[in-house]
């Protein structure tokens, strides 16, 4: 990973902690002295609204936007939103797909379509992405409560994608703890569960 040039495109929905993933990685880069530009797009961000973030590392004062086919890593926190990131994926790069389904009202009422996992998977493969699928059903509990899925996803990202060539898990843990000194134990649990989580490299047949 010469000079740590690495671009990450993150998508998901308001309320999922999408931007926090970006902030933690940006903090970790700052701690290591890697130049970083973090550009969250909140728009009219609200619970359930589209949120994306672009993180550019290893360049001095880069333009904030990643060009089409430029991202070394895509992290998607929701199945349908994944489709909005496909065009930014560099051919051959990692695509961490957390398969949560968050149906908009019209979909819930059966008035609008929602993509199947197969459709999403096909689009990522057409863009020559390497899919790592994390099943939301595997989200663990800590003291009988589901952990934050963003920290769990971040663990899986560190285990399964090229981000591990830039940071050690300890780098990320340190950044997480700086952010929430209080919930350190729970976050560590969620992160380590993510690190150990098994991801699908081929499309699961029963989801």
């Amino acid at each position, binding site marked *: 990973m010469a000079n740590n040039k690495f671009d990450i495109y993150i998508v998901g*929905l308001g309320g999922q902690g999408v931007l926090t993933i970006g*902030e933690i990685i*940006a*903090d970790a880069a*700052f701690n290591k002295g890697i*130049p*970083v*530009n*973090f*550009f*969250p*797009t*909140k*728009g*009219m961000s*609200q*619970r*359930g*609204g*589209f949120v994306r973030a672009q993180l550019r590392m290893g*360049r001095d*004062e*880069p*333009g*904030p*936007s*990643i*060009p*089409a*086919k*430029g991202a070394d890593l895509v992290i998607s926190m929701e199945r*349908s*939103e994944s*489709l*909005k990131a*496909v*065009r930014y994926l560099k051919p051959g790069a990692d695509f961490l797909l957390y398969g949560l389904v968050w*149906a*908009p*009202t*019209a*979909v*819930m*009422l059966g008035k*609008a*379509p*929602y*993509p199947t996992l197969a*459709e*999403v998977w096909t*689009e990522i493969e*057409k*863009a020559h992405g390497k899919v790592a699928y994390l099943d939301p059903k595997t989200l663990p509990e800590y003291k009988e409560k589901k952990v934050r899925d963003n920290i769990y996803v971040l663990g899986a990202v560190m285990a399964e994608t090229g981000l591990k060539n830039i940071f050690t898990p300890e780098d990320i843990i340190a950044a997480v703890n700086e952010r929430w000194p209080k919930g350190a134990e729970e976050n560590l649990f969620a992160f380590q569960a993510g690190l150990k989580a098994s991801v699908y490299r081929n499309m699961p047949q029963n989801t």
Partner: protein
Amino acid sequence: MKKIVSGNEAVVLAALASGVKVVAGYPGTPSSEAIGSLMKMGKLEGTEVEWSTNEKVAVEITGAAAWAGKRSLCTMKMSGLNVAYDSLISIAYSGCKGGMVVYVCDDPGVSAGMCEQDTRGFALMSDMPMLEPASVAETYELTKFAFELSEAIETPVFVRSVTNVAQSHAVVDIEERTLPSPEKAVWEKDINRYAKAGAAMCMAQHRRLIDSLAKASKIIAERGLNKVEPAPEKGGLGIISVGVVNGYLEEGLELAREAGCNVQEVSTLKLKTTVPFPADEVRAILRHCNTVLVLEELEPYLERGVYIEAYKLGVKVKIVGKLDGTLSRIGDYSAVQVAKGICTALGQEIPANLLADSDSAVEKAAARPITCCAGCPHRGTYMAINQALKNAGYKKDEVIVTGDIGCTILGMNPPFNTVWMEISMGASIPSAQGFVYSGVENPVIATIGDSTFFHAGISGLINAIQHGVNLTVVIMDNGWTAMTGMQVNPGTGSEFQQPGCTQVDLVKVVEGLGVENLFVVDPYNLEETTKAFDKALTLPGVKVVVTRRECAIQAARRKIKYATMTVDQEKCNLCKLCINITGCPAIELGEDSINIDQAQCIGCGLCAEVCKRSAIVKEAK
């Protein structure tokens, strides 16, 4: 101290380091976090910080502070500059003593749902220097410089950012705050400079303004802000770029190289200003190169200047940019547009991966229309309007409902489909009047929020009252400037304002205007609110319905829960009426009944009010 800050924060941190005395503005995405982050710092001894009623008020306050010799900062989004500009151009004519910086954010690519206007046009019109930072760190440096420049030329200076820079976060070396100068505020009476009523004084001021821009040009050149890097050989490609596009240059050259372009012999000119126009540097490029590529987002202001300089020099140079159709005036740029421009300029075929192909993946994604948050009081207002129109015998889309800026526009989306249009802050009421004047026979309803009403809605209401127009005005008063991230406005409760600020009671204001048919209702009470509209629609003249209930997000932040909503599994037959009418995101479709997400639900009770089987039960907390 080095730390990660946003572009917006960088502006106010630079202002604090520069000894700013007065900061005022009006919220507007993407600029809101500038004053927002100052507000979070608590009381700043010696510096006045406020959210003003509107941008014009803010620019007048900061202008006068600068006249009195103090440094001042005014912040706004691009649409806000339109509001402020009447005063700003006049202040520019008079000039200033203390440094005055106007921070304005454009939104190429439209992340906030407004016009893609390029405010560099305003800088041209009022001969004010406009600094265009390419990055967060540069925002900090250029804001500090803007104060110095403004004092040196005695004219206000713009710092113009764009969403992608303003909302980016990066490392900046932040200096300590410098306290505002302890010298007494002194303003010398000089009507020739500070008044306008006289042709001679106006034209003298105009001359001074033009001279001050020329002076700015010289200072910027001495500082070497605009960097020419000529290739060793003459006759090659020259690239002129400005602002955020500078950050994409290196990457665009890489992409062009991969596409087969020979980019060894490229001259570059990276600019930090379009106004003043960097004529000397542009001429240097025009003399050195045979093809010049101009890279700027939105309008071709820079490019037009390059054509003029080429004409004046009499050089035959091919100019590539927007005016030859290569690049677009629409949307924000990335390295892709830079590479496209380079390929075109060098006569290289543009590779397929740089051409905007239709995005088949995005087309398959589920649509997510933005809607009201769970518990949003506006939901009750739209439901009541829709019900009252039905009660009065109107079919769908037979009654015009004008809209306004802010969360209240969400009534345009499903499931309400209530609101028809929006123009600008406060336009809902005059536009409703226009429809009435045009001869529309059915009733016309205007909808507006509290902050928007105070900002620019009140003058439209006064006009409608004066002229006795038949219309119904709905002021949705949730007590906050919500859409931009919960800022205070004149109607916000005193307890949430800065010490010493007073709440202005919106209802008393409307009463004071002499509105006879005024209804003040709680939009959580669907029956009462619907009845108010039923009645208003039968009355002549200006009727005002104030639907009053605090923004649910703000109430929830203070742990308020009005009631607990539960579902009676036996009674719920999954008719989905509650979802179809309220569209509340806290209601989910379960297997045997609907479910209510208690984490989101604030207990507004609107779902229970529409359930025909009493299957949703509201239990008081």
